[in-house]
C-alpha cells in the first residue's frame, strides 16, 4: 500500500515535470528563433544560422516526444477526466506554435530571402514581438496548470503584443510594396513576413481557447 502511494506520487511528479519541460521548450524555441533570424539578417545562410536551425529542429523533436508522453500518460492513467480533453488540446496547440517556429526558420534557410538593410530593424522587432507572444503564451499556459487566476494577466499581454506584431508586419509590407525592388522579391518578402506574423496569430488563437479552459478549470 505504502509502495503504491509512493508510486502514485512519483508518477504524478514525473508528469508535472514533463509538462513543465514542455513549456520550457516553447520559451527555448522562441528565444532561439529570435537569435537565428538576427543571425540570418546579418550573415544570411551561414554556418551559425544552420546550427541554430538544427537547434530549433531538436527542440521541436524533443517537444513532440514530450507531447506524446504527456498524452499517453494522461490517457493510460485516466488522469484529470474532466479536463483531459482541454489539456490535450492545449498541449497540441502549444506544439503547433513550436512547429511553426521550426517551419519558418527552415523557410528562411531554404528560400534565403534578401531583406534590404532598411528593413532589418523592423524585421528584428517583428521577431521580438512574435517571440514575446509565444513566451507569454507559454507562461499563461503554465499558469493554467498551477495558478489559474493569473492566466488572464498573461493573456492580455499576448493580445497586446499580437496586435503590435500585426502593425509591424503591416508597415513592413507597405514599405516593401512601395519600394522599387522586383515584384517577385516583394511577394517573397511579404510571404515570409506573413509567416512570421502568423506565429503571433496562432498564439492568440491558443490564448482564446486557454481562457475558456481556465473558466472550466474553476471549481
Amino acid at each position, binding site marked *: 500500500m505504502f509502495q503504491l502511494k509512493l508510486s*502514485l506520487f512519483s508518477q*504524478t511528479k514525473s*508528469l508535472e515535470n514533463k509538462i513543465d519541460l514542455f513549456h520550457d521548450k516553447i520559451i527555448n524555441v522562441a528565444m532561439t528563433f529570435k537569435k537565428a533570424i538576427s543571425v540570418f539578417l546579418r550573415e544570411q545562410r551561414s554556418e551559425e544560422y544552420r546550427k541554430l536551425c538544427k537547434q530549433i529542429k531538436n527542440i521541436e523533436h524533443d517537444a513532440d516526444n514530450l507531447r506524446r508522453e504527456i498524452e499517453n500518460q494522461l490517457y493510460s492513467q485516466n488522469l*484529470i477526466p*474532466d479536463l483531459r480533453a482541454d489539456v490535450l488540446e492545449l498541449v497540441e496547440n502549444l506544439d503547433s506554435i513550436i512547429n511553426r517556429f521550426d517551419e519558418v526558420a527552415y523557410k528562411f534557410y531554404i528560400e534565403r530571402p534578401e531583406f534590404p538593410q532598411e528593413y532589418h530593424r523592423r524585421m528584428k522587432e517583428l521577431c521580438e514581438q512574435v517571440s514575446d507572444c509565444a513566451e507569454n503564451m507559454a507562461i499563461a499556459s503554465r499558469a493554467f496548470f*498551477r495558478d489559474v487566476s493569473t492566466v488572464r494577466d498573461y493573456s492580455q499581454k499576448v493580445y497586446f503584443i499580437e496586435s503590435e506584431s500585426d502593425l509591424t508586419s503591416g508597415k513592413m509590407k507597405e514599405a516593401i510594396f512601395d519600394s522599387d525592388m522586383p515584384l517577385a522579391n516583394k511577394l517573397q518578402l511579404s510571404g515570409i513576413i506573413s509567416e512570421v506574423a502568423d506565429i503571433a496569430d496562432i498564439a492568440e488563437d491558443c490564448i482564446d481557447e486557454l481562457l475558456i479552459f481556465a473558466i472550466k*478549470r474553476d*471549481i
Partner: protein
Amino acid sequence: MDISYFIFLSSGLFLGWSLGANDAANIFGTAVGTKMLKFRTAAIIASIGVILGAVFGGTGASKTLTDLGEINELAGAFMVALSAALAVYWMISNGTPVSTTQAIVGSIVGWNLYSNYPTDTTILLKIVSTWIICPVLSGIIAICIYICIKYILKNSKIHIIRQDLYTRIGLVAICAFGAYALGANNIANVMGVFVEASPFHEVKIGQLNLSGTQILFFVGGLAISSGIFTYSHKIIKTIGNDVMSMSPIIAWIVVFSQSIVLFMFASQGLQALLQAHGLPSLPLVPVSSSQAVIGAVIGIGLAKGGRGIRWSLLSKVASGWVLTPIISAFICFIFLFFLENVFNLRVYH
C-alpha cells in the same frame, strides 16, 4: 430458529437492496459519474463501509423508528418493510431519487393507522423536521467547505495533476466515510422494525462481541451491498450531474457534506460529546442521503451565484419527497388489510 422469521425478513432485505441501489449511489455516484473512481472500486469500498457502519454504529437511529411505531407482529413488520421497499422501487424505476427514510416512516404511520395505534406526533414531528434540517444543514456545510477549498486552491497553487491525485485519494476516503455514515444512519430503515422479534443471539468472535441486533444489522448490511452492486449504477445517471454539472472536487464536497450530516444524525458518541459540553445536539434519526445530497448540491450552486442549477429537475425530486411517505403509507394500509383478511395473519395485537 424459526424459518418463518426469515421469510418475513425477506421484505426488509428487499428494502435493504433498494436502499443500496438508491442511497449508496448518493455516496459514490458523483465520483463514478465524474470518472474519478471505477464503479467496481467504489462499490467494494462502499459495501465494506456500509456493513461496518450498520454493525458498529447503527443502534442509535433505530431507536427513534421503534418509538414512532412499535410494530408488535412479525407479519406487520414484514408488510411495513415491503411497502417501503415497493414505494422506493417504484420511484427509482421512474428515475426519481427517493428517500428510504420517508418510505419507512410512511409505512410505519400506515401501520399505526391500520392498527389504531396512536402515532407519537412529537417523534413524527422530530423526524419530519429533519427532512428540512437535513438538506439545509448539508447545504450550509457544503457552502463552508466549498469556500475553504476554493481559498486553499487559490493560494496553494497546486499543480492540476497533483490536485487530481489528491481529489482521488479524498474521494476514496470520503466514499468509505460516507458509506459508514449511511450504514450507521440508515440501517434502522431496513432492519429497525425487525429488531423486536430478532432471533439472533450474541456471538463472540475472538475479542469481538456482536449482539443479536448487530448480527441482524450485518444481514441488512449485506442486503444493502447487493443493491449497491446490482442496481446503483442506474441511479448514478440521475443524481449528481443531472441536477448540476459537477467537477470532481465539487463531487467530493457534496459527498463529504452529506456524510457529515448522516454521521451527525447517527453518532451516539458525537451526541454524548455535545451534550457533555452543554451544546445543542441533533436527534438520532435516520435521515435521507438523497435530501442531504440535493441540499449540498443546491448549497454549492448558490455559493456559485445560483447559476447552473436545474430547478425543473429539483422540483421533480422534491415532489418525490412529498409523494414517497404518502404512497408508502397507502400501500402499507391496503396490504395490511389483505394480509389480515386474505391470508389470516395477525399484523398487530
